[in-house]
């Protein structure tokens, strides 16, 4: 069953945010195609360690596509060539023997490189901090079934809530815009009756913070949606635009 392939990797190495980075080339042999992309990088790192070199830093945690920690550009695509997949869930079956794979970190002013493939995404936390919540205090919640929510609305909210905050949308967007991420949260909360009370304040606060972080503007390129491992729809951006207009111009 298992097939092994040989690969040439061109990986971005960068000591820290201040250094300029460069590509390094590595040859890997006998990679089992059933392994994941990160497991392939593990193999490389084990080898580098044994050679007394510093392994490639890359972010990961759950390795099952849910925590949103992993991510890199693989051959120019955020999270690599598979549809709706995080990097950790990309498997080496996608590649052919003797392929060259180019691996780069997410690039955006809002995501400074920390080291090699690791970037600082704290800007996303600050966007959430600027309003991505419902201000209910512990203990003050009413009975859960006191407020029914139409199933369709609940499903749409869930679609948006599925965002894992990985940043692939920013990475793939030609403008390095964080609109899809922000829109997902604004939609998730705005679609639910619980979230309506603070809807205006939320959208204004989050958009303002997003702009402050240096992310680009949206010119409706829809690359974000295509790169998103959770298939967050750009219709969420439309909803955010509408909500923003409402909040700003309709008193």
């Amino acid at each position, binding site marked *: 069953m298992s097939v092994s392939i040989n690969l040439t990797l061109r990986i*971005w190495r960068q000591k820290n945010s201040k250094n300029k980075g460069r*590509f390094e080339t590595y040859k890997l042999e006998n990679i089992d195609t059933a392994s994941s992309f990160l497991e392939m990088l593990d193999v490389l790192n084990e080898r580098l360690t044994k050679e007394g070199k510093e392994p490639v830093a890359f972010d990961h945690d759950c390795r099952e596509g849910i925590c949103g920690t992993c991510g890199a*550009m693989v*051959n*120019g*695509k*955020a999270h690599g060539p598979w549809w709706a997949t995080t990097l950790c869930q990309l498997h080496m079956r996608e590649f052919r023997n003797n392929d060259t794979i*180019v691996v*780069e970190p997410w*690039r*955006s*002013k*809002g995501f400074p*490189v920390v080291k090699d493939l690791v970037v600082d995404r704290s800007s996303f936390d600050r966007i959430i901090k600027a309003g991505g919540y419902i201000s209910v205090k512990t203990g003050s919640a009413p009975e859960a079934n006191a407020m029914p929510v139409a199933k369709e609305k609940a499903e749409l909210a869930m679609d948006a809530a599925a965002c894992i905050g990985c940043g692939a949308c920013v990475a*793939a967007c*030609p*403008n*390095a*815009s964080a*609109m899809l991420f922000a829109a997902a949260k604004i939609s998730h909360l705005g679609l639910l009756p619980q979230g309506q009370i603070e809807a205006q304040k939320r959208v*204004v606060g989050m*958009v*303002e913070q*997003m*702009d402050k972080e*240096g*992310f*680009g*503007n*949206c*010119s*409706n*390129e*829809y*690359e974000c*949606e*295509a*790169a998103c491992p959770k298939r967050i*729809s*750009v*219709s969420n*951006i*439309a*909803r*955010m*635009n*509408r*909500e*923003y*207009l409402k909040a*700003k*111009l309709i008193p």
Partner: protein
Amino acid sequence: MLDAYLKSSIGRKQIVAVTGLLLIGYLIAHLAGNLLIYLGPEAFNHYAEKLAGLRPGLYAVEFGLLGVFLIHMLFTATLVLDNIRSRPVDYKMKTAQGERSWATRLMPYTGTAILLFVIWHLLDFTFTDKFGPRSILSDGQSYGLYGVVYNAFTDPFHSTLYIIAMLAIGLHLSHGVESFLQTFGLNNAQHAITVKEISYWFAIIITTGYSSIPIYVMIHYYSH
């Protein structure tokens, strides 16, 4: 409040979108007027004169139009500059993942092409002597504005440039209309595909509508 709106990413793109919509409105009206060319010199010139008769009111509209044009470009410029700054270190390798069309990629370029076209176009038809030598057709008579337009399009080079410009407009609109709907939140997952279609067909209508004029003139001229 308004100040923050005009500085924000979404606010600015909505300004680009509204001005875009106004420009589309002008395009439709202008096309309707221009198509009168098919009815012959009288109808066309009559329309032009009627328009001219609306002055000085028309100046207001013209300046308004100029303003809209400038605002559209100015806000676009700030967005585009921001977007360049938002990725200080570029990718060494970047591949499209979605269905990002050429129209989308080329927005700033088709926009610039439109700008250049309009400048040339104004020199061509507006700031020209409408009863001078350019208005005289082969029968030696002046046909006014009709003559100017007819003469211009008998030159295949001139016509080709126009058609290229119309294609640029078509491209701009095929993304622009869809984009407008998205920017104002009129898009949603259910009818995303129709929004694309509206945009696409609208662009085709505008482009063929306008392009038909130089084509018609050339056919008319060379078949006589």
